[in-house]
């Protein structure tokens, strides 16, 4: 997203102008829905998460501080935390039931991705799985490094190093050359 458009949205948010939500949705909804889906593995839940998150964004619009985080980072935090909270809430109610539903009922995976995202996805897939797993655990599953270490049965030091290397590799993937692809895809 261009800096100009992002500044415009932030201004509308601070002015409590509802057009901000419309613009945010147009430019971030698919990405945030993907984030919600990655956390919940459930399309219906992800839909609820996105809806709740956008409403939260509207209600918290005046609290956004552009000096502390980029607009997407702020949106990501809200969506991720809403998804994790919802998932934990459901798991608390019936952990066993939810696990069954997630594993056998709801459709997830490659079928839901849009064709225009496949190239980017392929780029991400070029990142070794061991790095993806660590990044996913920390960024999408709401785990701390210690929890990821225990869950993945990998030493804490290794988690830290894989996160660093994974992020560095991502930087390479989304470097200048990758950015050209992303711009061409309109992302």
């Amino acid at each position, binding site marked *: 997203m261009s800096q100009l458009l992002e500044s415009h949205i932030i201004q509308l948010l601070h002015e409590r102008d509802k057009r901000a939500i419309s613009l945010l949705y147009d430019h971030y909804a698919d990405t945030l829905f993907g*984030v919600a889906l990655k956390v919940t593995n459930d399309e219906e839940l992800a839909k609820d998460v996105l809806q709740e998150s*956008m409403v939260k964004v509207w*209600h918290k619009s005046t609290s956004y501080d552009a000096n502390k985080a*980029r607009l997407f980072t702020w949106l*990501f935090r809200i969506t991720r935390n809403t998804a994790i909270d919802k998932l934990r809430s459901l798991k608390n109610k019936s952990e066993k039931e939810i696990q069954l539903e997630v594993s056998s009922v709801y459709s997830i995976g490659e079928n839901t991705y849009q064709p225009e995202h496949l190239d980017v996805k392929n780029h991400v897939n070029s990142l070794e799985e061991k790095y993806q797993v660590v990044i996913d655990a920390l960024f999408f599953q709401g785990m701390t490094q210690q929890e990821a270490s225990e869950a993945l049965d990998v030493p804490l030091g290794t988690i830290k190093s894989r996160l660093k290397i994974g*992020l560095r590799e991502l930087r390479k993937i989304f470097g200048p050359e990758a950015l050209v692809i992303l711009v061409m895809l309109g992302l």
Partner: protein
Amino acid sequence: MKEEIYNLLESDLLEKYLLGTTSDEETPRVEHFIDTSLEVRKAYIELQENLEQYSRSYATKAPEGLKEEILAQIQEPRAKSTVINWLSIAASAAAIFLGFTAWYYWDANNSLVNQQNEMMAEIDGLKSNLLQNDAQFAEMQSELEKLRNPETKKYVLRGNQNARNLKTVAYINPVEKLSLINIIDLPKLPEDKVFQMWADVDGKMVSLGILEKADNKLMSVPYKENASSYNITIEPKGGNDHATVENLVANIDFNIQEAIKIKQ
């Protein structure tokens, strides 16, 4: 400083800050280094860019119609308004409750005031009765004293064949000039007839009044100086100005009585 920056970058604090999961103590520390260290700031910006690109790689078409639902939802009154509505409802309920409570206590207070007034009236009544009883008692005592007085003379008037059940006792004190009668019993008369009492004074019958059943109660009758006898006649209802001698039913002659006493 460099070592601190190195330690920060080697730790997961920057990632935690990115996700908004740093503690209250960690947050200002990380923000301090982002503001003061170009290296940390650059790492933080890169981290944000990576996160966005990485997230975009998982972008998925959002469900149809969701945008309209969200826009419709934020058009509705905010939660704050709902809170205000609930607060208004709660305030109304509280006001009604307070009003009802106030009415209840006001009503209860009125009842208590009424009860108190009733009790005061009863107490006043009892006081009045007590005073009345005291007065009656004093009167009875006074009457009893008169009857006990040695100067008081007792005379019994009995009915003749025309009024067999008539029995009246007269108490006369010529010193105190008192005259009392106690009607023990009176025969029943037709509705248009009454018993009337007379004193014979110097050969003239003077009315002392109409006799009425008084539940064995002592009644005062006018004292007549020089009365020689007391007489009871049956007279028309309302009494008669002149005694109907032929209807005489009881008589007591004081002179004869005195003569009998002297003789005894």
